[in-house]
């Protein structure tokens, strides 16, 4: 049952989430805390506050869901946030935000934008940032990876089966090499990627409260991955949403549809049909790290050439650690790299501020969190930071470059480097 009010009642205000919330830790304000926001949402539902009064505080939320990890009562904060944003948006849609989502999640538009970026100094033009955020831009428009060919893959593992790989929207433009490494690692375990035409998963839309678009994109994606193969996802934000398609549908079913009764009946029937498909889909969606871990990459790594003289640390992408509760598989894999010197990152589970399009919409807070993250990375004296999400990847890389600190690699790149040598990647 995913009624927004019901979800908020599970918060008993114990406050155990406070010290895990990046925006609370940075501001000290209850308005920018999970407990505070849940109380505000509940008050808005009860008519004691206006939705527009609470909007700035929902906007400043990263959606990192660290509070879910801390919460003893299993309050589904991520769902509360997305539904509240959906409510606010239904009342007053933000057209600029919609345009940002649309252009980021459309590979062709994104490519064009990034080409244009070369001519305007690498950051979003001031007037665009002010329209979106009311503040000066902080995030550089990311540069697509240069796809230097990797040496031919040599493996004696026989083919065991096929898998789908989410190529995604921004990911295929910005990080083609991560996809290539994903394919190679899967093949090392005997899995071949079945290439299909596919679209965006809708994660960015869902996180920003456009649940209807997210549902449509999700519906299309389930059609595009019809066979009963594992679906491997190398971007944590996407994987987290894909594993929650069922909950998204349940929520949307609680909102009374508009239109004639025939239309409503048809829509209802279609969503029931769709729900059945979605249940199977969420069950076979895996983050790359959990798939590699449970399908024997630890053993494969024993024969890898390894990485010497490199100090490695790991940043938990929020939608991996908090959204999907995956923290141990990537660490165990990295630590299994022969000769790897692994060092834990302080506050590794605290958001870096990237948070999807957050660093575009909330540049100031994003910058504070990035500085905090880079400071911790410098404390580890690591040469390489691994992480499992494109947003964190680009944002932390920007921060590390500014401070001449560590090199950022996707976990897939780091693991593939263990087999073919790090020279290919830096």
């Amino acid at each position, binding site marked *: 049952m995913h009624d927004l009010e019901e979800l908020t*009642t*599970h*918060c*008993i*205000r*114990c*406050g*155990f*989430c*406070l*010290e895990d919330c990046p925006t*609370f830790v940075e*501001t*000290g*304000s*209850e*308005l920018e805390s999970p407990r*505070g926001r849940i*109380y*505000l949402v509940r*008050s808005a539902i009860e008519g*004691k*506050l*206006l939705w527009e*009064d*609470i909007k700035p*505080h929902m906007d400043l939320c990263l959606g990192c869901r660290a509070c879910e990890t*801390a*919460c*003893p*009562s*299993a*309050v589904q904060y991520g769902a509360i946030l997305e539904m509240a944003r959906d409510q606010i948006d239904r009342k007053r849609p933000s057209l600029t935000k919609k345009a940002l989502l649309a252009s980021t999640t459309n590979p062709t538009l994104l490519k064009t934008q990034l080409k244009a970026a070369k001519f305007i100094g690498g950051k979003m033009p001031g007037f665009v940032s002010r329209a979106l955020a009311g503040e000066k831009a902080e995030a550089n428009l990311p540069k697509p990876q240069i796809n230097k060919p990797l040496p031919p893959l040599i493996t004696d593992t026989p083919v065991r089966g096929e898998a789908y790989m989410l190529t995604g929207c921004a990911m295929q433009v910005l990080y083609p090499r991560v996809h290539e490494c994903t394919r190679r690692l899967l093949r090392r375990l005997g899995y071949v990627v079945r290439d299909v035409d596919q679209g965006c998963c809708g994660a960015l839309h869902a996180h920003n409260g456009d649940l209807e678009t997210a549902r449509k994109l999700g519906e299309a994606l389930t059609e595009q991955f019809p066979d009963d193969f594992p679906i491997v996802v190398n971007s944590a934000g996407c994987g987290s949403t894909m594993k929650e398609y069922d909950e998204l549908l349940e929520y949307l079913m609680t909102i009374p549809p508009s239109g004639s009764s025939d239309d409503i009946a048809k829509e209802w029937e279609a969503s029931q049909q769709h729900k059945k498909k979605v249940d199977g889909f969420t069950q076979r969606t895996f983050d790359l790290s959990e798939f590699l871990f449970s399908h024997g990459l630890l053993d494969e790594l024993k024969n890898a050439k390894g990485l010497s003289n490199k100090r490695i640390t790991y940043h938990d992408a929020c939608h991996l650690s908090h959204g999907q509760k995956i923290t141990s598989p990537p660490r165990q894999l990295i630590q299994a790299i022969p000769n790897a010197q692994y060092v834990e990152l302080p506050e590794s589970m605290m958001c870096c501020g990237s948070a999807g399009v957050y660093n575009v919409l909330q540049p100031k807070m994003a910058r504070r969190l990035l500085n905090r993250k880079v400071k911790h990375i410098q404390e580890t004296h690591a040469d390489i930071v691994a992480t499992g999400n494109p947003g964190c990847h680009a944002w932390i890389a920007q921060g590390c470059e500014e401070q001449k600190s560590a090199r950022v690699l996707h976990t897939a790149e780091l693991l593939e480097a263990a087999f073919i040598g790090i020279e290919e990647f830096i």
Partner: protein
Amino acid sequence: MGAYNDSRMDFAGLRSKLRADQVLDGSAAVRAYDCDAYTVDRSKPSVIVLPESTSEVATIVWWCVSAGVPFTCRGAGTGLSGGAMPALGGVVISTKRMNQILEIDIENRCLRAQTGIANRRISDAVKADGLHFAPDPSSQSVSTLGGNIGENAGGPHTLKYGVTVQHILGVTMVDPLGEVLEIGGKLGCGPGYDFLGIICGSEGTLGIVTEAWVKLTPIPSVIETVLVAFPTIRSATETVAGIIATGTIPAALEMMDRGIMNAVSMAFGLEYPAEAQALLLVECDGESVEAVEAEIESVRAVCEGNGCLEMSVAKDEKERARLWMVRKKGIGAMGRIAPSIVTHDGVIPRSKLPEMLDFVYSVASEKNIGVANIFHAGDGNLHPCFYFDDRDSVQVEKVVEAGEIIIRKCIELGGSVSGEHGIGVEKMDLMPLMFTPADLEAQAMAKRIFNDGELCNPCKVLPNQRGCAEHRMRWRGVAT
């Protein structure tokens, strides 16, 4: 003092002394700060301020005094008796931007910090040196040093290590007139009257503690933690009395009943025999394996004598940490069962535990509300946790009534109205059950040494304060 009326004030004077981002107001802000973790009583402040230093706190208090505006200090807002709720509105002074460790002296085992720091962060800072800050309330991952001092917080390890006051060497505080006082210091209180003893546990009514010197305690070299399951509540409570009677003082001796067991098994997958009705969590620590083993054996003998179902020893540090996480987040996990809880806090002699728990269950069933128990059994410190829906005023009223009946019983059995959660607004009216008018007058006189006015955290702790009748009439059972 005339009644304070916030509609006539613009707080411009206060704003001029702080940066814009240090002042919160507006409908959402005053809502977010209208209660702490005691949710059945609420009252909105006019503004919330976030000072960053002792001198800013002094400036704010001085402004409040000159403008006649009440002020209430707040840390993490995890209090369970409404201590941080601004009963008469006015200004909430949050310490949450004052979270720096200012000085660490490992050699002399002490540390100075601003009081908005979370308790756990103090221990984290000195863990590598084998030290910790001993007071460990269940909320320690978030509750602040200042809040711990204000409530004189306890925790599971109180049994062996004492409560907060035993671990505070000195404080810097802003008194209710805005003067900065230094009491005690790195070396503790010198000869003369022990003012630290009055400040600790004063619930923010004597001023605002902004910095403190705390004592650091070595982490014991050997720690053993066991979880024991019992077939009945009575066999568990009798075991508690039995263990203490052997002369063994465990580091902690905690009990959970079926209601909590259900919540924590849902929340954390804690396993126990299906027929278990109560769990005891027992920890023994010391400097040698032999001494700790001997204590565990004596605990085992008493548990077996009382017919325990199972006794499992935590294998390693990870398992031990997990058991404590389960214990400390036990109350927090109650949100899985109901939308609201009120956790009561009473103390009784340990020998009366069996009788008292029977009484708690009978009151709950008579009032037809749910109750779960998780508490510091070794100290006889009960925490009956009532769960209900606070949107239903009938249920709220029953919960308040049930709490009062239970506290009356505690006193009847020779106990206390509160062990560690404080009086706040919740138990003010129960104070006369425990203290004679002469006792209360003596306390009021002690209060006047520091606080002779009615602005600093009004309507808390001592009953019958002027200007508070209206607040009390307003809230009973009608929190909105």
